[in-house]
């Protein structure tokens, strides 16, 4: 039927389909978000309610919670498609698989990364962050969470259909998330101390560009290996 | 050379000898475990070879 569908058009179709599916299974979006909120609210309970301490640990707490929330949502990135066979169809289309995989990653970010960015100001306020720190928390999450989705997709593709996949995924992916964590919290701390965070932000940006270029391609290759 | 002094390592006997013992244990396990498996395989193949011929 639509053999000569343009690359952009098929990209949009996959993205639309993914977003529609996500809308139908709203719980899948809400679960990581609720997890994110719960983890962050555990910290004041654990370390005590002193605003001084909370303000110091806030960047790290929010970012570690964001890493874990993303990790939780990655397991279902390709799993439904694996079971109903659409994943193999995706790899068999005439379009380069990496472009379609990229659409899936974008939809993953829109449904897990973006909600975290939007809810973060509330959580930042609950941890008594200053307004500068709050803005930089949102900014780093906006730049950093796409990286989490991109690198996470590679891990999800590698562990596709494996028993104990979730824990294994954490073991593979979390070490690779470390630079994002360091640069992002570094940016928030620098900005809230009155220094320029430009260096940190451009490093996150560079990391984002590199993963944008390579991750979809590596993910589609890893999917081929896993489905072979 | 004084042996007691040598073993004392300037008061850091635990740290210095601990490091060397750890190295001995970790490297030792790395050679012992594969070698044990390898020897067992060799023995098995030799037996098979003898019964076959």
């Amino acid at each position, binding site marked *: 039927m639509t053999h000569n569908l343009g690359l952009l058009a098929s990209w949009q179709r996959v993205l639309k389909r993914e977003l529609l599916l996500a809308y139908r299974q709203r719980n899948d979006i809400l679960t990581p978000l609720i997890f994110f909120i719960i983890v962050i609210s555990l910290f004041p309970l654990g370390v005590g309610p002193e605003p001084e301490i909370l303000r110091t640990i806030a960047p790290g707490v929010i970012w570690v919670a964001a890493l874990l929330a993303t990790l939780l949502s990655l397991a279902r990135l390709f799993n439904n498609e694996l079971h109903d066979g659409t994943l193999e169809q995706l790899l068999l289309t005439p379009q380069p698989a990496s472009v379609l995989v990229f659409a899936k990653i974008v939809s993953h970010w829109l449904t897990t990364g973006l909600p975290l960015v939007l809810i973060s100001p509330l959580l930042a306020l609950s941890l008594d962050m200053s307004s500068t720190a709050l803005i930089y928390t949102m900014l780093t999450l906006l730049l950093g969470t796409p990286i989490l989705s991109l690198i996470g997709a590679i891990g999800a593709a590698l562990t596709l259909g494996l028993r104990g996949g979730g824990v294994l995924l954490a073991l593979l992916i979390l070490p690779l998330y470390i630079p994002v964590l360091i640069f992002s919290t570094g940016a928030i701390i620098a900005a809230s101390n009155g220094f320029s965070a430009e260096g940190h932000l451009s490093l996150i940006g560079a990391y984002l560009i590199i993963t944008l270029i390579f991750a979809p391609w590596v993910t589609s290759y890893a999917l081929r290996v896993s489905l*072979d | 050379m004084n042996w007691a002094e040598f073993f004392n390592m300037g008061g850091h006997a635990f740290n210095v000898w601990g490091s060397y013992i750890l190295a001995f244990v970790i490297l030792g396990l790395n*050679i012992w475990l594969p070698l044990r498996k390898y020897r067992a395989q060799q023995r098995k193949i030799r037996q098979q070879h003898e019964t076959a011929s």
Partner: protein
Amino acid sequence: MIFQKYAAPKYFYPLAGKCLPWFGTLAILTICAGLYLGLFVAPPDYQQGETVRIMFIHVPAAWMSMFIYAMMAGAAAIGLVWKIKLTDTFITASAAIGASFTLLALLTGSLWGKPMWGAWWVWDARLTSELILLFLYLGFMSLHSAIDDPRRASRAGAILLLIGVINLPVIHYSVEWWNTLHQPTSVARIDGPRIHSSILTPLLIMAVAFKLFYVSVVLIRMRSSILDNEADSRWLQEQGA
């Protein structure tokens, strides 16, 4: 090509068998020489005293941890491009010993840190990077062992290794940077200012000894796994091990 010929298990197996005694003997000799020079000949450091002798284990082990990871990643690239089966045998044989050297570097670093820094563990940039390297080794080993199909296991493992090796400089750089951000100058540099030749010689000899040890163990493990995989092939039956 001679390279491709010896990449076949049939030819590699006897070649490895021939090389093994040489590497094994050399490894034992260099380890003895390194131990003698390190424990008896090298003088105590004027600053660190006798604890400097931990360096002869710690530093070569840390070098090995990175060297082995690089070797594995190199083999992974070769295996993915030219589809040589032997590379996976090499990689899986290397992984456990690479992880052991990383663990050894961490543990001896901790034993060295106590007298130097007054704490068993300091979030020093090098130690932290080494810890992350251990996580990368463990991640690779768990992924490889979680996949039952050997072809998928070797290719998925290779992809993970290559991603890891690209990320390693970024991780190292970010950790170093994070470290200077959080701890200005409170920790002493582990590598000291200048290294005297009486210290440098045993250090280099131990580094060579560890490499020879690694080659010997890898050869044994590779021969072992070839025996596992090719138990039914005819060349093995004819050769009679």
